[in-house]
């Protein structure tokens, strides 16, 4: 990579969330509201700090700071490059919204939830800014364990079981990943850093060795990224966790796995080496299977959050599929989908949270007529759901378009079939929700003449603003980003820089 | 079953060890590694370097004095362990804990023991002090003192013998062996040498021989007294009976 300037800002961004942790510890229990606002300020400040790097990153600068070194080639280092910055921006933004949302949503054990929220944000930013696989792994593992308390926050039996499952998957994955890193270190000539065109090559190691490294990485990150045989924890964890946590799980934490795979593909192996090793075939087939099968599973779910979780499994595989195309547009679409999906799925989960808070309903079949009770929420939900299907003008459409174009570039139109199938299935499981919410209502409203009426459309009495505002912001962004994707700071402006380098 | 396995294992071990023995240097051969490598220095120069005619004593106290320091620490440790496990009579309440019954034995035996024990002790003092020139030394002398106290205790009982060597004396002398080594070691440091240096570099050469002799005697006496007291204390601790938890055989 090009020479980078020393800067404390990455470290500052990673450390700022801890400030809200300190605030929680420092202020007495009585100042509950003050503490919550301080937490929000903390995440806002973090977002601000991340944002402050934007002009520099757009100019192509990278910033770096060394934390500690184990031995010369093995060090903890934070570096802001374009790709990492892109991920960090998504993280910080979504986290800020989730924090606002949680201030109203979380009703017990605030301290624990917010403390671990802040910790996880810090670790996620650490992941985004990691300069090498070693640092990435360390932050990744800490994030894994830090997110456990978020999942089991409700402490119901279901939550505990989900948490247990999560831990089992995460620990096994961590171990595999650890092995991958050791193998990488060993065969990569002691280099764990990220290079613009990859660092491994067949000069140092045999084909089989590199394949081993790649597949252990894929298996290790694949658990978080919920590639199909490894997805088991996802559908349990999402419904069990509180909604802001589910939004983060789906929007960001799953992406940490996907981001790891992106790093592995772009910066460790490099496109040429992947093409040479022919591993992309496996990646693509796994991704296709996941996309289709997960959508089918989603159809069968009645629990809203569970359906959304299965949808997430499928959607994250879009990223993998995009990478596996090894073509400019495919990669562009895949990586951009990381942010797109975060916006859409974040919005959907937060909507599910609002529904849960206001009506206590979890299952789709109970939601008849809910669109009249919660119009704003459900409109936002519909916007995001339509985007998921790929309706223009929305981010979902951008992704699908780019992926389709990528598959043509790669010369494999079969992917288009998969994409279309997925879009249809998405429609099949999202449209019924919208339909039920707006066009079916239960017989409660039967008047004295025996006629059924619409429930009244009630605006302005929805829910706490802290719940509604993030939902609306996300829904708006789903459209805005879809239309003006090239605004500085929006995905296209950042991702295209990276992809243009790799696929000129 | 377990026995058979153990037996097989032991037989295998024995065969292995005997095989090794068959491949060892022949015993008593002056060409052995043991007889050729380091040893001549000890045999030829021990007398002038350590001022002990008995080379073994020279090796124990001087060349390998650090080992012997470890050795006396081991036995001190054993005493601490025995006392930790079995407990010890406490100061002031000694009589309550000690079995006062006299062992019935004839006057002849008693008189004999009364008569013999001082001589045994005298012999042990000789053994201690002449460790440099003849077989024996601190620990052997200490063990002999211990043995004499055993005889005394078997005849006169614990009460009598613990009156002869009261707790106060034992307690203050038990560490004597280790302390002797530490004292000599520290003095060696003060004298400008390393730990446990007997011939202090800071002292005139002409004085060194007598210095070494005196220090050796100091250590010998320490080891003798300390060893004796430790053995006696262990003995007393094991004999001591606490009636309320006596076994029901």
């Amino acid at each position, binding site marked *: 990579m090009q020479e980078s300037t020393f800067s404390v800002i990455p470290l500052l961004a990673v450390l700022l969330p801890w400030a809200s942790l300190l605030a929680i510890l420092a202020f007495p229990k009585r100042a509950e509201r003050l503490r919550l606002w301080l937490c929000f300020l903390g995440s806002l400040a973090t977002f601000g700090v991340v944002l402050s790097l934007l002009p520099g990153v757009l100019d192509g600068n990278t910033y770096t700071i060394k934390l500690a070194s184990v031995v010369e080639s093995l060090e903890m280092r934070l570096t802001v490059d374009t790709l990492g910055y892109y991920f960090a921006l998504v993280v910080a933004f979504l986290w800020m919204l989730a924090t606002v949302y949680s201030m109203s949503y979380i009703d017990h054990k605030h301290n624990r939830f917010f403390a671990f929220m802040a910790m996880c944000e810090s670790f996620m930013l650490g992941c985004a800014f990691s300069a090498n696989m070693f640092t990435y792994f360390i932050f990744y593992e800490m994030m894994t364990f830090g997110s456990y308390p978020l999942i089991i926050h409700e402490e119901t039996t279901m939550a505990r079981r989900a948490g247990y499952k999560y831990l089992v998957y995460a620990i096994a994955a961590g171990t595999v990943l650890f092995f991958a890193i050791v193998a990488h270190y060993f065969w990569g000539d002691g280099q764990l850093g990220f290079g613009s065109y990859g660092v491994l090559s067949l000069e140092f190691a045999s084909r089989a060795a590199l394949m081993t490294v790649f597949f252990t990485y894929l298996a290790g990150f694949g658990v978080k990224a919920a590639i199909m045989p490894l997805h088991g924890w996802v559908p349990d964890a999402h419904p069990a966790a509180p909604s802001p946590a589910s939004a983060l799980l789906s929007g960001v934490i799953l992406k940490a796995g996907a981001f790891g795979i992106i790093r592995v593909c772009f910066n460790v192996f490099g496109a040429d080496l992947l093409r040479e090793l022919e591993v992309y075939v496996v990646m693509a087939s796994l991704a296709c299977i996941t996309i289709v099968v997960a959508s089918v599973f989603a159809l069968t779910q009645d629990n809203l959050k569970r359906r959304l979780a299965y949808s997430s499994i499928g959607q994250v595989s879009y990223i993998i599929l995009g990478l596996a195309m090894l073509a400019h547009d495919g990669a562009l679409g895949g990586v951009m989908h990381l942010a797109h999906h975060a916006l859409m799925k974040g919005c959907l989960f937060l909507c599910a949270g609002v529904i849960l808070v206001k009506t206590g309903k979890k299952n789709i079949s109970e939601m008849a007529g809910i669109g009249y009770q919660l119009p704003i929420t459900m409109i936002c939900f519909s916007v995001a759901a339509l985007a998921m299907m790929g309706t223009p003008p929305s981010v979902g459409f951008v992704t699908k378009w780019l992926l389709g174009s990528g598959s043509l570039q790669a010369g494999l139109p079969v992917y288009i079939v998969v994409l279309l199938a997925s879009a249809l299935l998405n429609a099949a499981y999202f449209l019924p929700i919208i339909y039920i919410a707006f066009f079916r209502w239960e017989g409660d409203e039967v008047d004295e003449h025996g006629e059924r009426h619409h429930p009244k459309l009630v605006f302005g009495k929805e829910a706490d603003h802290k719940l509604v505002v993030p939902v609306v912001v996300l829904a708006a962004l789903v459209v805005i980003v879809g239309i003006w994707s090239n605004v500085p700071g929006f995905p296209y402006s950042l991702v295209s820089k990276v992809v243009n380098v790799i696929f000129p | 079953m377990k026995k058979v396995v153990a037996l097989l294992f032991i037989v295998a071990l024995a065969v292995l060890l005997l095989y090794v023995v*068959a491949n060892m240097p022949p015993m008593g051969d002056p060409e052995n590694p043991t007889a050729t490598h380091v040893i001549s220095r000890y045999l030829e120069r021990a007398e002038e370097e350590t001022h002990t005619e008995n*080379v073994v004593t020279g090796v124990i106290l001087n060349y390998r004095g650090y080992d012997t320091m470890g050795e006396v620490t081991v036995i001190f440790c054993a005493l601490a362990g025995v006392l930790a496990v079995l407990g010890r009579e406490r100061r002031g309440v000694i009589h309550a804990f000690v079995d006062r019954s006299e062992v019935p034995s004839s006057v002849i035996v008693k008189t004999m023991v009364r008569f013999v024990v001082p001589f045994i002790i005298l012999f042990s003092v000789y053994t201690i002090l002449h460790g440099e020139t003849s077989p024996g030394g601190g620990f052997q002398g200490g063990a002999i003192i211990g043995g004499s106290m055993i005889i005394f205790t078997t005849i006169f009982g614990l009460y009598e013998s613990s009156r002869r060597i009261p707790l106060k004396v034992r307690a203050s002398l038990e560490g004597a062996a280790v302390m002797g080594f530490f004292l000599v070691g520290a003095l060696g440091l003060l004298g400008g040498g390393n730990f446990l240096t007997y011939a202090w570099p800071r002292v005139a050469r002409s004085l060194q021989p007598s210095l070494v002799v005196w220090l050796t005697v100091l250590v010998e006496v320490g080891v003798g007294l300390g*060893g004796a007291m430790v053995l006696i204390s262990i003995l007393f601790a094991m004999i001591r009976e606490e009636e309320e938890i006596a076994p029901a055989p």
Partner: protein
Amino acid sequence: MRLLHNYHYAAAMVLFCVGLYTVIVRRNIIKKLIGLNIMETSVFFFFVSLGYLDGGIAPIHAGAADPARMVNPIPQALILTGIVVAVSVTALALSMVILLYRQYGTLDVDRLMREEEPEAAEGGKEE
């Protein structure tokens, strides 16, 4: 035949094995300790034989003793330490035996290890 020449060593090894066998197989803990002592003395015996020199004399400079004929003093010095260590271990082990017998009323190692909970009756068990 080296083995026959080294019969001291061989005897020490046999004694070592006898001791080890006793420690492993005998169930009585005092027997085990006797076995332990046999093991120890056998190793001491081995050491002393190592230092022996054909036609040697004790390493004491008495009169006009010839240093070249003296046996090796090092093993002797080591073994002196060894003996003290052995008696220390024995003393500590025996004191524990006394305590164990007070508490479990048995010297049989199998019964000792079989007894389960500390809440079980204090004092002796019927044999």
